[in-house]
């Protein structure tokens, strides 16, 4: 029973890792770039929702706060692509790595300057509501997290698999030059995807905040989400979710049966094992370069 309890909590955590990982994967799918600031975008999204929703701040209703926060973070993501990322179009991939790491610091500074560095609690309607049954206690927040994550993954997957823009985005990632020539609006699609990933990050941040206090450093969770994305195979949305769930579940289980440090290492050990056995992740997409 206790084990099952661990698993449920782990799945809910894993959903949040998975959601942040989805953000990485979306951008990776569209531009083969990796946004190391995804975790910090999640953090910023949570704070924006808090700033709009909490009673001692703007005090708007929770639902409106979340939607507004998503809209604002969409604009932030879109703006980051327009103003900064676009400037280095065509530079080697790691330029974006360094650029987004720096962006992460900027986000952290902004959040810290506005909301301070002491942990704050986002007011949500789900706080403290639990379902009991058969010896299990399941938080409403956990159920909402799992539900929202599944719905969002499905929606994004459908977006990339069926919509014209989604398909064009993927085509663009295969060969930006070729896509550009055949008239795919590569730039515009990239901005859109960055905006979307900002909105998804906000959802992740709000769900994260339903489970505890937030401070500007929670973005470091992004590192774990990376492990999730890599385990799944950088280009796969369901893979990202699966990777997130694996990590989410492993952590509490390892924490229960092994020393704390080992539990903290466990996501990364799994990731390294996956990388060694399947260098492209579980849903590998790596092929040979043609010469």
């Amino acid at each position: 029973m206790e084990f099952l309890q661990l698993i449920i909590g782990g799945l809910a955590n894993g959903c949040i890792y998975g959601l942040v990982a989805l953000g990485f994967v979306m951008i990776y799918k569209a531009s083969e770039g990796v946004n190391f600031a995804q975790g910090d975008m999640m953090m910023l999204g949570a704070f924006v929702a808090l700033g709009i929703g909490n009673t001692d701040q703007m005090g708007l209703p929770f639902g409106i706060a979340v939607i507004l926060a998503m809209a604002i973070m969409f604009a932030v993501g879109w703006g980051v692509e327009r103003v900064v990322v676009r400037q280095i179009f065509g530079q080697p991939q790691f330029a974006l790595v360094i650029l987004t790491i720096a962006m992460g610091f900027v986000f952290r500074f902004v959040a810290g300057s506005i909301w301070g560095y002491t942990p704050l609690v986002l007011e949500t309607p789900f706080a403290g509501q639990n379902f009991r049954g058969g010896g299990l206690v399941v938080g409403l927040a956990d159920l909402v997290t799992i539900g929202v994550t599944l719905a969002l993954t499905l929606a994004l997957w459908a977006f990339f698999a069926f919509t014209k823009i989604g398909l064009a985005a993927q085509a663009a990632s295969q060969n930006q030059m070729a896509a550009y020539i055949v008239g795919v609006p590569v730039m515009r699609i990239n901005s859109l995807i960055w905006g979307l990933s900002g909105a998804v990050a906000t959802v992740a941040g709000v769900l994260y905040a339903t489970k505890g206090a937030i401070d500007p450093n929670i973005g470091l969770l992004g590192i774990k989400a990376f492990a999730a994305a890599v385990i799944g195979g950088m280009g796969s949305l369901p893979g990202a979710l699966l990777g997130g769930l694996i990590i989410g579940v492993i952590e509490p289980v390892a924490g229960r049966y092994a020393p704390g440090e080992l539990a903290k290492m466990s996501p990364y050990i799994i990731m390294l094992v996956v990388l060694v056995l399947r260098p492209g992740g579980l849903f590998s997409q790596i092929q040979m370069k043609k010469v």
Partner: protein
Amino acid sequence: MRYVFKTTYDRDIDLHQHGWSRAKVAVLAGLMIVLPFLVGEYYLAEATNTLIWALAGMGLMIAVGHTGQVSLGHAAFLAIGAYANSALMNVGVPFLISFPLAGLITGLFGAVIAIPAVRMSGIYLAIATLAVFVIVEEMVILLEPITGGVGGIMAPSIQFFGISFDRYGALENFYWLCLAIVILVTWGYANLMRSPTGRSFLAVRDSEVSARALGINVTRTKSLAFGLSTGVTGLAGALMGHYIGFYNYELFSIFISINLLLVVTIGGLGFIQGAFLGAILITAVPQVIAILRDGLNANFGINLGSIPGLDTMIFAAILILFIIFEPAGLYGRWLKIRTWFDIFPLARRDMFRRQKSYLKTERMK
């Protein structure tokens, strides 16, 4: 414009192509040697810090700048170097042996973890090094007998030939020790880059298929480069431990990894000189900020001290501006300025225009 008339191939093989450049390096080295007589304790300590960062930067430069392997986890190798050195010294191994040994241990560790890691392409390697970093950090906490766990340890005092090189007791000596090490490593690094090994690094960086077709064992070359990179970083870690004196795992945080990346990128990827320029920048900027902050406070009553995280924010902004406007880094910029003067007034505006290349897909690696 300076013409170099080559009489033999040796001219090209030599480290310096003309006496002028040799003289410049000699003057610089001379200045560094007499520095303790020119500046006070505080700035000498800062200069020592800069040297240690330059050493660590050279370590990372081998991987990132010269072999194209991005590492986000080099702080882990600083840690391994620091703890290995102090552990060896604590069991009685003299510094002159423990120090190179610490580099060797770190280098071997790096080379071994590189063997699976180098099969991965760019982004995966970066993330794998991040994972290695977290694992090493937790290991440091776990291995309490060696590392002092969360509490930390005291770096043993350095002494050989009856002379103290203690950072607090004899700062000048410690400075000279660091300087000697940095000069030696720089010399070795420069040698490497003018020999077949260095060329094989560059080959692997620029085109793996070609490198293979020329008979270069890419996996071995990359692990060798990563091993050398981590080894040099380990040496820097050992010195950093002595420089800080009392430290725990927090000294080697993820932010140190990022700062190191900043050193090599802003300094100029692919240039040994870049590691030095980057190190100067990263150690000088906090000083400049502090001075500005005090000045603003005293003269205008603006108190910037109340804004936490401003330093990191400024670093981040500098980094973003460099990536966007001068990806070749400080040294690249300097080369352009020098060329501009060399050929003055013949420079054309479009001469230094960056070539736009389009992202090639990594999935087709």
